[in-house]
């Protein structure tokens, strides 16, 4: 999960068709939602259902992001 200066740069480095390119805004929202509670008491790993719901809520609704 590397960062690139542009989508063109990302596509040039693409090694296969199992790749998705997401905007900085999208990944920032995902990172915040995924990790904001990580160091808080009671944190536990997301279940696949919770993770998929989060992906969908944030617009990661393509087949690429399915977990089941």
């Amino acid at each position, binding site marked *: 999960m*590397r960062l*690139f*200066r*542009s989508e063109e*740069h990302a596509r*040039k480095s693409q*090694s296969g068709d199992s790749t998705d390119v997401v905007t*900085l805004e999208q990944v920032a929202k995902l990172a915040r939602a995924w990790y904001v509670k*990580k160091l808080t008491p009671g944190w536990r790993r997301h279940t696949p259902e919770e993770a998929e719901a989060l992906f969908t809520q944030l617009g990661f609704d393509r087949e690429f992001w399915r977990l089941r």
Partner: protein
Amino acid sequence: MSQTDDDAFDRRVREAIGSSIRRRGGVPKIAQVAADMQTDGGAVQASFDRMIAAHVFIPQRDSSEIYSYNPFCVEKTDFRVRSDGREWWALCGWDALGIPAALGAAGRVETTCLDCGEAVVIDVDRDGTATASPGTVMSVGVRALDFWKDIYFT
């Protein structure tokens, strides 16, 4: 111990890990967690092993010690994050942006574009808003379903 006892103990271990990261600025080893909890190292190692099996964290190769309690990696990587007055390291762009979020602080992510090698610098506000050169993107090369098939590659 019963499953319920294990779950409760594992929760205490996770809280000790989180507390240690906040207080010391780094991911603890089994011995440190055991000392912090004033408990037996073998019990903590058993807890680590259960969490490894459940994909709670990424272990070091051939060890039960933590390699990455995501988003916090134990060693220097291509993703440096400055946040909350400290320097941190992450395994990927997703995790790098997650460090300020986990700390509840603003931060700066520093890495390089894998294509051209130019610097990629991202400033993250306390509320999670990220600012960088226009057009900055993240490429994900493994389908979500396969993230843990080879987590060291992912």
